[in-house]
């Protein structure tokens, strides 16, 4: 039962949230210009990090906002929560 902090609503129970997988994966601006391999990379080939992982959540039973978080995937400890469009803490991964 994770405890997750919606950047708007504050701490809420995991049951109110949806998970969106890895964060900061941008949809190619011009899909036609990417190869099949690059398209596959965008669609399927995430980083699946062990350790601090930037991921997306949506407060689906609350304000319905998507936001990002940094969580250690081994301890499940959240290191940060930040809104869409905000810079991830901690720089490049």
């Amino acid at each position, binding site marked *: 039962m994770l405890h997750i902090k919606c950047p708007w609503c504050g701490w809420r129970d995991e049951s109110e949230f949806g998970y969106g997988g890895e964060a900061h994966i941008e949809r190619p601006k011009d899909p036609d210009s990417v190869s099949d391999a690059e398209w596959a*990379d965008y669609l*399927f080939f995430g980083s*699946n*990090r062990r350790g601090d992982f930037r*991921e997306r959540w949506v407060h689906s039973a609350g304000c319905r906002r998507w936001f990002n978080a940094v969580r250690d995937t081994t301890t499940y400890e959240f290191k940060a929560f930040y809104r869409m469009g905000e810079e991830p803490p901690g720089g490049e991964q």
Partner: protein
Amino acid sequence: MRKYSIFSLARNALSHHENWWQAWRSPEPKKRYDAVIIGGGGHGLSTAYYLAKEHGMTNIAVIEKGWLGGGNTGRNTTIIRSNYLWTASAGIYEKGLKLWEGITQEVNFNMMLSQRGVLNLGHNLQDMRTIERRVNANRLNGVDGVVLNAQQVKEMVPIINTSETNTRFPVLGSSYQPRGGIARHDALAWGMARACDDLGIDVIQQCEVTGIRREDGQVTGVDTTKGFIETNKVGAVTAGNSGVIADMAGIRLPVQSRPLQALVSEPIKPVIDTVVMSGAVHVYISQSDKGELVIGAGVDKYNGYGQKGSISVIEEQLAALVELYPIVSRLRLLRHWAGCVDVCPDASPLLTKTPVDGLYFNCGWGTGGWKATLGSGWCFAHTIANDEPHPLNEAFSMKRFETGAVIDEHGAAGVAH
């Protein structure tokens, strides 16, 4: 290999079991192997076993960071079946099931394969269409199976609630694969380790692979906590940790690692003689030979390597269980745990070459690879030995995510165990 039998037991009983030989050695790694298998789970061990047995490669090592079978092999609900929808899946899972049927005798270790049959329930009209479609495909693919109606389900599973009114999602029917069943999880790891050892394979525990060395796009060896090991062929069979290994080789995989939980009840006298799975109501159950109910459901929604999941998943799973089998309400949960499974977007595995020469991946089995352990090892051994997939695993390449020829087993089974 010195045989296990009732006679060897009796003989050893006379000497108070003081003279039992080791099931496998605990060797130190050699400098070089013809192939290194990373991961001492069922898939890794059977890969090594078939490499030796079918392809004559015996100078190989299985490297396990913890204890043999301590990954998902040692924490799964042991359901075995081969009634998958797509032809490619049916091929490899059925191969696996056939190998299961002979493995106890083949390696002289009782895997306790119990072919008590597997039911996959349908709770709405669409479930029933899907079941019908899958069973028909199974029959034509040479996989046994029938469709049962609710009454037949009730006869087979007397404790199930088949009321049409007193439940939110009534049981409308089920698929049934008679040859499906369960087997003993630990026995597989140990039996295969013993068989590997007997073929001269080094099974090395408490040794973690920490790096994969490459030169000109070709594997040259692995770094481990017990030193560098030279080899030109590396088979990564590390389930939930596959992404981590891929990182070491500088490649990415289309897998995400998620917690998958299971639980057991206290042991009780037999109440259920078969395996029953339900996708829509999200729970599955069998009863072990020791008497505990072994119960599972779907993966947690987030990535996690912690071998822990969220208790809410267990709560939902048990609500589904009580809804379906009202008599379990007063029984008690003894222990729950989790594994870390690697899930592919299409819920089908990868048995594949990679952009790095000599590096092969066997992963992505997600929530359902136990049953495939032997089939997977068999195909993967072929792939490693020949640097070429076997027709049975050709479709399970990484390329499919590029071409779009995915093998989507999601809709087909609800829960892909």
